[in-house]
């Protein structure tokens, strides 16, 4: 029974083999598509058979996927939704921000709510201890900020250092010294690290996002390291007091190694005491110790910070330092070169040649430049440009080199690259280059380098203004829909640029839509923008439907002016706007409202324009009412306009008026003609 079964099994196997090999031998060309073997790595060579066309089956190595690989694949199938607000906000019309100020305040509010919750959790950790998550989620557990070890010992000191309690650790150190215990070198060094990093003040509980935004000029002028603003200090951070705790402890230490010196030097430079840092460096050399690369970076910055010397001397000092670095056999890193370039950036025109030399040196040592490197170079060449001199073409070389590259963050200043690149593009008015920069932004993960809110707004404002200036109107409108408001909120200047682009391309019918959008983005009370819109609408005559749309828009703008007047004591309704609104009403056939506008002229003490009065005369003629015509003449004479005579003659000629009205007109004209000669010059000056 078993034998039969095995016999059957063997026959089955042979048949299987035969069929397979037949199939194999047949279509040799398409072997890769018909693999039937599941388990074996290679086909065991059957003795006696000489079957050609069998290849080795190579099972590929097992792929290991990232934990979020599926999510990443799904994410790559969708693009950004141009109609949605950023996901950090609640998806509700009341809760979506409508301007950049609002979006910043909402994000700050959310963050402060989170801080309040964290404060509560960390104050009462015993209520949050129950751990039901499997696997353990560390970020949802409360954190301990109070030191646990109470006695005076080195372990207690180390704990306080770990918890970053500056004052407590200094006190503990003093207590240990008084008690006479010896403190090891590593602990003293780590205490020095703590003190030098925080500049002898407690780490502030203000997070850096709450600092006020500095303007660009301030950013270039100021140091960009310590951003915590304290009451005693100025805007720019903590300054290093002489004889503070760090120096005292440094003096008290029985033995110092190079790490101690290095920390002190770096702390001094960070907190703006460059001269002391250089002195300490000479002390280090006197003790025949070596500095590490971070210290050299700090020293380079210190030489650039010293105020009294000339640029060439500073550059020579930096070169000296570099030679010493080479002599001590310390290899420079990316930070070294970036620091040099940052210092050269402050030297402006003088620094251009050394900057290029530095860059070439960096390439020669085969250190990959980061985005910050290119940022400094662009700043050097394009910052203080005036268009009369020829501009350098270095940015084209830079962009050619960078296209398609993906970056990872290596330097804190990496996020300034795109801003400076786009500024240079807009200075050069080159749209292709701008598209290249934007393409680099969208490559891979480079979007992370766009920086904080104000930098992103600046980048996109410049980009969109350039697009408005140079690109065809359809493409411009597509960018408009894509970018606004999901990526940035437009400033009024951006909207004015867009309006001018529409004007050039003769697409004025989009203007009411733009006005509606401007109201949403918080520009309702921006007078310049409103005047521009009204001017563009009122300049020429258009088709009737368009006139109706324009008149609706004008009525809307008028209502915003009125509500603005209601809030302020001094009404500031400019004369031009009054003119334009009245003209638009007239052209759309809304004569009642147009006549009301005339009344407003007197109220706001503004003078109507000549064309406006002519148009009113035309409309009066169209409606065939001499009373209206006389009204106009009266108004003109009230303002003592020189056009009054022309109007009077027109009235006499075109309208059928009776004798009294003629006399009244005659009176008016005589009045004006008398005062005309006197006040003619005044009126001309006033106009």
């Amino acid at each position, binding site marked *: 029974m078993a034998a039969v079964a095995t016999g059957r099994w063997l026959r089955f196997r042979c048949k299987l083999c035969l069929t397979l090999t037949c199939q194999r031998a047949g279509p040799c060309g398409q072997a890769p598509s018909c693999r039937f073997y599941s388990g074996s790595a290679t086909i065991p060579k059957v003795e006696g058979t000489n079957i050609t066309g069998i290849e080795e089956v190579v099972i590929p190595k097992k792929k290991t996927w990232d934990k979020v690989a599926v999510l990443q694949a799904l994410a790559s199938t969708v693009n950004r939704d141009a109609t949605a607000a950023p996901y950090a906000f*609640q998806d509700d019309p009341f809760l979506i921000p409508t301007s950049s100020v*609002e979006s910043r305040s909402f994000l700050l509010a959310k963050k402060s709510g*989170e801080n309040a919750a964290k404060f*509560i959790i960390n104050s009462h950790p015993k209520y949050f201890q129950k751990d039901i998550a499997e696997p353990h989620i560390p970020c*949802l557990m409360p954190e301990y900020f109070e030191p646990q070890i109470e006695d005076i010992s080195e372990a207690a000191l180390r704990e306080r250092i770990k918890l970053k309690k500056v004052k407590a650790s200094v006190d503990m150190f003093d207590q240990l010294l008084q008690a006479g215990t010896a403190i090891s070198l590593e602990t003293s060094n780590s205490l020095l690290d703590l003190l030098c990093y925080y500049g002898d003040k407690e780490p502030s509980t203000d997070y850096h996002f709450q600092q006020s935004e500095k303007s660009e000029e301030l950013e270039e002028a100021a140091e960009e390291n310590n951003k915590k603003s304290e009451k005693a200090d100025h805007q720019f951070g903590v300054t290093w007091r002489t004889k503070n705790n760090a120096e005292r402890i440094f003096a008290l230490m029985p033995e110092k190694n190079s790490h101690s010196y290095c920390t002190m030097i770096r702390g001094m430079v960070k907190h703006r005491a460059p001269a002391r840092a250089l002195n300490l460096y000479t002390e280090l050399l006197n003790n025949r110790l070596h500095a590490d690369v971070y210290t050299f970076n700090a020293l380079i910055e210190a030489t650039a910070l010293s105020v009294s010397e000339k640029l060439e001397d500073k550059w020579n000092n930096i070169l000296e330092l570099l030679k010493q670095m080479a002599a001590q056999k310390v290899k420079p890193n990316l930070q070294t070169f970036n620091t040099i370039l940052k210092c050269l950036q402050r030297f402006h025109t003088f620094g251009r040649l050394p900057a290029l030399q530095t860059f070439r040196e960096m390439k020669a040592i085969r250190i990959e430049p980061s985005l910050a490197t290119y940022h400094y170079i662009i700043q050097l060449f394009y910052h203080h440009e005036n268009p009369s001199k020829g501009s350098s073409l270095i940015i084209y070389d830079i962009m050619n080199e960078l296209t398609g590259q993906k970056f990872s963050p290596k330097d804190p200043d990496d996020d300034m690259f795109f801003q400076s690149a786009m500024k240079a593009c807009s200075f050069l008015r080159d749209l292709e280059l701008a598209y290249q920069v934007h393409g680099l932004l969208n490559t891979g993960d480079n979007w992370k380098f766009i920086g904080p809110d104000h930098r992103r707004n600046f980048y996109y404002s410049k980009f969109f203004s350039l697009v408005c200036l140079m690109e065809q109107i359809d493409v411009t409108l597509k960018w408009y829909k894509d970018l606004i408001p999901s990526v940035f909120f437009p400033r009024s200047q951006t909207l004015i640029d867009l309006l001018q682009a529409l004007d050039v391309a003769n697409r004025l019918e989009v203007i009411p839509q733009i006005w509606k959008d401007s109201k949403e983005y918080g520009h309702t009370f921006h007078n310049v923008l409103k005047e521009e819109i009204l001017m563009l609408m009122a300049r020429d005559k258009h088709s009737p439907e368009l006139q109706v749309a324009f008149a609706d828009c004008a009525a809307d703008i008028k209502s915003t002016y009125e509500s603005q007047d209601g809030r302020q004591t001094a009404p500031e309704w400019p004369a031009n706007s009054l003119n334009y609104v009245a003209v638009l009403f007239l052209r759309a056939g809304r004569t009642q409202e147009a006549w009301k506008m005339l009344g407003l002229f007197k109220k706001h003490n503004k003078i109507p324009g000549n064309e406006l009065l002519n148009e009113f005369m035309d409309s009066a003629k169209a409606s065939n009412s001499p009373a209206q015509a006389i009204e106009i003449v009266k108004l003109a004479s009230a303002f003592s306009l020189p056009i009054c005579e022309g109007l009077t003659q027109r009235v006499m000629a075109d309208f059928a008026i009776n004798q009294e009205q003629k006399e009244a007109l005659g009176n008016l004209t005589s009045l004006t003609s008398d005062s005309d000669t006197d006040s003619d010059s005044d009126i001309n000056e006033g106009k």
Partner: protein
Amino acid sequence: MPYRGPTSSKTQVPLDTARRYSEQWRLWNVVLDEALSLPQTRPIFSSHNWSFKPVAQPSNQVARFRVDKEDKPVTYEEVHGPHYIAHRKGRLSLHTGNLYGEDHAAEQTVEDVFLQKFMLGTFPVCLADPRILKRRAHQLEVSALVLRQLPAHKFHLLVGYNETLLSPCYKRPVCLHLQTVPSKVVYKYT
């Protein structure tokens, strides 16, 4: 005064989805209610009549409104009683704890009660409807309908606060989704 059965708060316990809510079952529930609630005026089992008829007078008081003078506004949620759940209403808390083979139904119910009260406390004047709690894998999503009583940045502060406080409490990510309405959405006046 007849003893009215236990009146519940606004929270509704999720019912077992496997059971059919047939008419007979409803009536039997009524009978149980009556039997347990010690009626003083209307005994079920009267001494004269042994024919046991379930008393089909619905005297359930739970979460219902009676039509009164028509001046009190009520929302859609409040108008429909609990027997309309899964017919005209959805549930207030959606989780799989009551399915066959799943556990932790009780813990999730307790969490629901706590969360409803917690949200009521954090958004003091603002809540228009009971909150809807959804549990999706590991995550807890709270959807709330709020009135526009506070400025928008205060809402964002409260959202950040809630999310960050509740997540370590339950050791799971808690998401808050708000939708604002100008006032309570009235379905009819009763």
